């Protein structure tokens, strides 16, 4: 793996508050990395550190093999796209795109070439003479991406670029950003709190909490093998169901019954003790499949949320709420009895004390 960005033992504190603590992160060349976390987890702060907009307290940042910890933002080979677009309101789209190049002393012909090229890539050619205020949100964000594009940077940094857009536009631009990454092949770091954006865009996702990276892995691994309870709860909607019980060998027992977890891939040698068993709503089976499942439960339907494509059902299993995702065509009413089941290969076991994956 060809490392493009290396962050070594990064610390950042504002007075007594440590925002980032001893953070290490390697990003490969051409990789699309998403920093995901709830607000206040330090993801935007980390991005600002990489951009050079915040001075770090300790540690190093290398971009393209060069130590840029104390370089000016403009000398780091990065382009950045902000949530609020941050277009210069008094300049035309063309002025916005060429501002960085003018500052870098690029010749006039070259500026015209590069602006034209970027405008073509992003399909904003008819807008070049307009002022930002005469653009829609989606167009503005395209111009903002263009501003990074013209500068021929190695690394693109995105700070929640789609959060100000409505749902439909967000989905469109998400696809465009993915396509742009495939065409350009640049390294991209993308900050978001939206798990759908993270899952769809990322080569790898770094889930952050309290200034630390809890898990750094492919979307597939993050979804299927979350490293701890926080990650398991954060990814997936509705959130994972948990059963609180004890594990001995491959037998898990909780107030809702005794489940066999034969076939579960343990991360390490299984240890007995207080354990949380997690199962995603979409991995809960019903009907004939439930009857033949490894673990079977009898539930009473409590609440139904039809989404069209799926139906979310909240059921009561011996005093515990369990969410299940059912086919949208299943007719179901609150109060009905519903047999549920799941297989051990899709469950997640976490130690109750450390909350880490077993």
């Amino acid at each position, binding site marked *: 793996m060809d490392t493009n960005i290396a962050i070594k033992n990064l610390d950042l504190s504002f007075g007594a508050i440590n925002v980032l603590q001893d953070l290490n992160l390697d990003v490969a060349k051409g990789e699309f990395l998403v920093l995901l976390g709830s607000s206040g987890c330090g993801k935007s702060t980390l991005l600002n550190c990489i951009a050079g907009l915040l001075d770090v307290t300790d540690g190093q940042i290398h971009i393209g093999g060069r130590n840029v910890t104390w370089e000016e933002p403009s000398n780091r080979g990065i*382009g*950045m796209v902000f949530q609020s677009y941050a277009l210069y309101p008094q300049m035309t789209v063309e002025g916005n795109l060429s501002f960085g190049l003018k*500052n*870098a002393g690029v010749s006039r012909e070259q500026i015209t070439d590069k602006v034209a090229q970027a405008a073509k890539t992003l399909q904003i050619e008819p807008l070049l003479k307009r002022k930002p205020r005469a653009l829609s949100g989606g167009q503005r964000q395209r111009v903002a991406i263009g501003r990074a594009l013209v*500068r021929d940077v190695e690394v693109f940094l995105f700070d929640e670029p789609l959060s100000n857009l409505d749902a439909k536009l967000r989905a469109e631009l998400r696809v465009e950003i993915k396509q742009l990454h495939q065409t350009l092949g640049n390294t991209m770091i993308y900050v978001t709190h939206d798990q759908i954006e993270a899952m769809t865009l990322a080569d790898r996702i770094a889930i952050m909490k309290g200034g630390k990276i809890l898990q750094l892995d492919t979307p597939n691994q993050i979804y299927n093998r979350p490293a701890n309870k926080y990650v398991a709860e954060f990814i997936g909607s509705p959130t994972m169901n948990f059963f609180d019980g004890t594990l001995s060998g491959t037998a898990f027992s909780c107030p809702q019954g005794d489940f066999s977890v034969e076939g579960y891939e343990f991360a390490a040698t299984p240890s007995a003790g207080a354990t949380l068993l997690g199962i995603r709503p979409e991995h809960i089976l019903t009907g004939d499949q439930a009857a033949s499942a490894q673990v079977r439960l009898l539930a009473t339907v409590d609440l139904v949320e039809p989404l069209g494509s799926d139906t979310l059902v909240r059921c009561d299993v011996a005093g515990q709420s369990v969410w299940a995702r059912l086919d949208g065509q299943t007719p179901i009413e609150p109060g009905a009895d519903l047999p549920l089941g799941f297989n051990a290969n899709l469950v997640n076991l976490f130690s109750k004390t450390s909350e880490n994956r077993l």
Partner: protein
Amino acid sequence: MLYGTLLVVSLYYLLPLYVMVVTSLKGMPEIRLGNIFSPPVEVTLEPWVKAWAEACTGINCDGLSRGFWNSVQILIPSVILSIAVASVNGYALANWKFRGSELFFTILIIGAFIPYQTMLYPLVIILREIGLMGKLGGLVLVHTVFGMPILTLLFRNYFAAIPEELFKAARIDGAGFWGIYFRIMLPMSLPIFVVAIILQVTGIWNDFLFGVIYTKPDTYPMTVQLNNIVNSVQGIKEYNVNMAATLLTGLVPLIIYFVSGKLFVRGIAAGAVKG
């Protein structure tokens, strides 16, 4: 009811102005009749001419014109200098936070609350030591310094309300301290500059205290000269000349308000509401 109130209030405010204008257009014999509200029977511009070019202050008898030009010479450099420095101050304090910048700002703001009287004598000494006492340049310096706290506060708050991401984007685009100031911040800040200009023009033009202390008769600003004309106790009181002189002195701030009133209101609003 509303209009009734407005009418009464405007009458209350306009009446003195009316009396001033009317009196300034009368000759002295007509004034002696005592009907201060009656319009002039015989309109004469002589009091205006006299106030501008002939009225005596001390040993000089060339009217307010000398004071006017002195005031202009004080006003223009003071306004430009104070606004230039304060806007850069405000920009630096809002966007380029340095260690101790908050403390620096606090100290500057405290400066706005210290009574001027306590600083008068120290300033006399400072001006004497740097050789500017009694010169127009000295008064320009004083006005620039005293305008600093309130103007810096004004500019800092305005720049602080400009989204920070714009500043970050410009840094990534390779613009430096001055590049961002001139190319990004200035073009977005016309309203606040208008507010600052109005504040400074009226404040400096109307200043009497500093003018009377830090200048000498040759370099008196218009306000000091006006006082000397109006308050002279020798001879007869020429009310018409006094009124004309007062109107002349008040003309500059008045014109500024009329010309930029709309921008002024917009600037105040822009400072309050982001965007």
